[in-house]
């Protein structure tokens, strides 16, 4: 087995960014791994993405025609199993996305592949090596995949740059896989996120609060603080899960991706899914009682302090 197979991701007729990020990931180890870099796209309209996937370093684009209009985890599973069987790659890369979470681990389990999810760095030393978070991302683990001829990794989105388009088209090849009857769920519809009273993606200054505020009754206080600061209030997931704030205010993977000039985070530890939505803010200031909180890893300014005491002082300073 040799070479690298990247699996692109599309949704509702659009190619998702992670697809070409994975090409950059693959290129980091293409030389030591040896063999070719191929990128596969699965879907009812797979062929129309072939041109977009001809990124620098891609040797061949593979298209697999799927019988379902939309992503279906079991159809994709069978398609990927067939691709691994026919292409015999040493390394398979997918995005660590919601779609992948529905089928990639099943492929790895059934085929006995090397496997790791939410990988943030890869290298090669006789075989693939990967880095990923451990203990809630407070530590970082180095992984090897001994005895595995093929390893499947899902890579964290937003870490690697989107690969540049190649100067010319890459050869494309249709791979025929019998996917009739593979679907085991029925798609009903997509529902777009409900619009809220405010669009936090447009705000230049966000005051963002998380689990650290402890109680629903404390929310009005931070609404007032936001107003005094001239900021828009946003929140991390636990406050939406608890029903304290509407989902339109949520920053993160399943909420909004924001890029304000200033992001002031109070009592947000910085779960991966939250960081995915705010790490590109121009200036990030984080206040948290836990010095090991992952949010300090992306913040420009940090304070290990009690958020209520800091909020008291902010209120006083602003008069």
């Amino acid at each position, binding site marked *: 087995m040799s070479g690298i197979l990247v699996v692109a991701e599309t949704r509702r007729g659009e190619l998702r960014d992670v697809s070409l990020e994975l090409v950059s990931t693959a290129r980091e180890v293409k030389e030591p791994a040896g063999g070719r870099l191929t990128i596969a796209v699965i879907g009812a309209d797979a062929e129309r993405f072939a041109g977009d996937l001809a990124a620098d370093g891609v040797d061949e684009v593979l298209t697999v025609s799927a019988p379902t209009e939309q992503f279906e985890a079991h159809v994709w599973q069978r398609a990927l199993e067939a691709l691994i069987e026919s292409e015999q790659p040493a390394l398979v890369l997918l995005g660590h996305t919601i779609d992948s979470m529905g089928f990639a681990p099943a492929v790895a389990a059934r085929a006995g592949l090397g496997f790791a999810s939410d990988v943030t760095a890869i290298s090669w030393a006789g075989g693939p090596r990967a880095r990923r978070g451990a203990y809630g991302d407070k530590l970082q683990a180095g992984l090897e995949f001994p005895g595995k001829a093929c390893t499947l990794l899902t890579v964290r989105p937003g870490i690697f740059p989107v690969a540049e388009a190649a100067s010319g088209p890459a050869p494309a090849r249709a791979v025929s896989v019998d996917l009739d009857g593979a679907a085991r769920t*029925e798609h009903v519809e997509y529902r777009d996120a409900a619009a809220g009273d405010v669009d936090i993606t447009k705000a230049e200054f966000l005051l963002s609060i998380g689990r650290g505020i402890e109680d629903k009754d404390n929310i009005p206080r931070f609404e007032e603080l936001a107003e005094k600061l001239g900021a828009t209030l946003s929140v991390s997931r636990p406050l939406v899960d608890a029903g304290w704030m509407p989902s339109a205010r949520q920053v993160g993977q399943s909420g909004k*991706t924001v890029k304000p000039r*200033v992001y002031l985070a109070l009592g947000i530890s910085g779960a991966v899914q939250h960081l995915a939505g705010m790490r590109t803010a121009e200036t990030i200031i984080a206040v948290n009682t836990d010095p090991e909180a992952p949010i300090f890893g992306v913040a420009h300014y940090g304070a290990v302090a009690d958020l209520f005491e800091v909020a008291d002082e902010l209120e006083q300073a602003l008069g």
Partner: protein
Amino acid sequence: MKIVVAVKQVAALDEEFELIEDGVRVDVDYLEWDLNEWDTFSLEAALQLRDDAGGDGHEVIVITVGDEEAEEGLLSCLAKGADRAVRVWDEELEGADVLAIARTLAAVVEREAADLVLCGVQSSDAVNGATGTALAGYLDLPRVAVVTQLDWDGASGTATVHRELEGGVIEVARIRPPALLTIQTGINEPRYATLRAIKQAREKPLEVLGLDDIGLDADVVHAAAGSRTVALATPDRGAGAEMLNGSPAAVAARIVEIVQERMSG
């Protein structure tokens, strides 16, 4: 209706910690244990399905792979209303990766002939987001991952679920049992156990099994493992954040300064 809920006792790091000799695991003296947050939501979903079904013959079974530390988590599930619990442990499972755990769970689920298997989307310590779907793979069960709403129609035997996609988009999909769902936080409001229920939980069946008892050879578990951890370290956070020190007043003053500077530029 028979529902199996796979749960995990998760480890949180103390502020200070040390690694054990192998250099790839944290000394357990520096860990605090708790039931995985996601699993409180999957358990609640199971209890609601059982209770809505009403009548006899419905059962919620919580299962876990873990040493004695995991017992407390199972007891809390029993206190909240699970009917029985199964814990599997063997020294050979020490340091097992996500696929080895899923392979072990598969052998437990196979004994149960469940209509539904529920897992949390991910655990707060390993954050693989993979155990449930790997388990479905071993069991060849249809599955939906990252479910934020679950409506069960007993008459047609169909579950209508919301799959939570990036950016808050929802896919509505239907699936028929036997099936596996991975449950996202916020899907429901997990209940608290009463003091009386906490006392009574110890009276409920809690089976402790070894690999032999579930017909698994340690070699099979080791062969299933997808990775081996060879290093564990504090992440390199690059330049890192500039830390604002001093009293809360000093911190607040600096924050106001930074905000004014950045917003006026």
